[in-house]
């Protein structure tokens, strides 16, 4: 098995089988950011704590990309997912082929392989449309 490395440290976590993104929360003004910041973009406070965004959001917007990217074959789907707290997260959407993607539909966070290199797999996060129940297959510890 190849070495698994996260695309970035400290962005996501698997807690008892439930994937969550890790943002930051300002202890002073309460602003929440993802990716996490070590100081607050809203008020400049350095009093920051981790904030678990959870693994569920709704689709804010999306597109199917019909040309390949450095690590991805075409077509692939990308989107903005809005979390209940209001934060927008950009990520790929997988398992989109079987579903008609629609703004406002429920989305579920999945932690898994983004791409493979010669000696390692890069692990990151993406989303499945929530109606899809096959989302357990790709879950891994980050």
């Amino acid at each position, binding site marked *: 098995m190849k070495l698994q490395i996260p*695309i970035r440290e400290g962005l996501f976590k698997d807690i008892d089988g439930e994937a969550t993104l890790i943002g930051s929360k300002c202890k002073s003004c309460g602003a929440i950011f993802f990716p996490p910041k070590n100081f607050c973009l809203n008020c400049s406070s350095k009093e920051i704590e981790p904030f678990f965004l959870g693994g569920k959001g709704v689709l804010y917007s*999306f597109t199917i*990309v019909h*040309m390949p990217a450095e690590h991805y074959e075409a077509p692939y789907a*990308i989107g903005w997912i809005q979390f209940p707290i209001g934060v*927008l997260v950009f990520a790929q959407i997988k398992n989109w082929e079987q579903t008609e993607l629609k*703004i406002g539909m429920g989305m579920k966070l999945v932690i898994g392989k983004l791409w493979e290199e010669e000696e390692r797999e890069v692990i990151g996060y993406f989303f499945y449309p929530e109606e899809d129940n096959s989302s357990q297959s790709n879950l891994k510890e980050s």
Partner: protein
Amino acid sequence: MREVVVVGVGSTVFGKFPERRPDELGAEAVRRAMDDAGAEPEDIQFAYSANLYGGMVIGQAILRECRITNLEITNVENACAGGATAFRKAWYDIGSGLYDIGLAVGVESITTSSIVGKLIPPAKGDLAGELGMNMVGRWAMAQRRYMEENGVSLQQIAKVAVKNRRNGCLNPYSQYQKEYTIDEVVNSRMICDPITLLQCCPNSDGGAAAILCSADLAPKFKRKPVKVIASVVKSGDYLYRSRSIGFSEMTARSVKEAYEMAGLGPEDIDVCELHDPFSYTELAHYEELGFAKPGEGVRLIEEGVTQIGGKLPVNPSGGLESKGHPVSATGVAQIAELVWQLRGEAGKRQAGNPKVGLAHVLGGEVTELESGACSIHILGR
């Protein structure tokens, strides 16, 4: 700040010229601008040169081909807003009194760059880029949001492509000179759903240049001067502060400053060259620039307001979609088009008898920011 005027502009034809070096393209634009002004190499005291993909000190290489050496040359990069940034800096250096006569040039050779035929990704190491983001995708998601929020159809958006491509047919500098129907635009090859090929600007090579001087020196040159009455360049704010990814807050903020600087409002603009890398962005920019109320941009295209012959012609040059988008050249090319329009020299694409023109450009994809840079220039005669 003292008054600054444009006394000469020049541009190459835009197109695909892989056999031509970027400095050759830039030099052709500069020589045309020099000829337009009746300026000599010895007149030029300083220069700003914008380029993204060509390598180091390209401004020096451009001006070497024009017999312009031994002066202050600054090379700038601000993605698609690079040319506008170069123009603004030239304006500032004269307005502030540092110099009296200078030039701004923008050049790009996309066909010889590393990104030819690809979807432009964000800078290396950008998290969104590694997750699959690209420039078309970013705007496709904004377009979907804009369509949803404002009840705008793809057929309506395609009318922008139809208009701009029709305008391009009238412009000898335009990369494309071909008309298309709404159906052809909508049914062309899908790039990033719902953006199809004919809603996109192409890969382009080209250069554009402008000669600027203080207003008191304008009589030295042979052409009637065009005044720079507002100049703004602004970086993007955090995307989370935007009301929607389909609305360009930085455009709205930049143009507010520009209108204040000019002492004018959107109702005073007679002709506009705006950033239309994708057809939908033109509709959104109508609203952000104050030409239409929020959500009502589509009315301007439906009612023909922004076509040549309408009350406010937008992108008479053909815009980025038809004229082409040699990234760093675009901002200066917009200035050149406005100067020609204001002088009444735009030939078949002449947009009436304009007195005031506005140029708008957005540049650069940066994770977590709305965009890299926005520039507004207002020119008048």
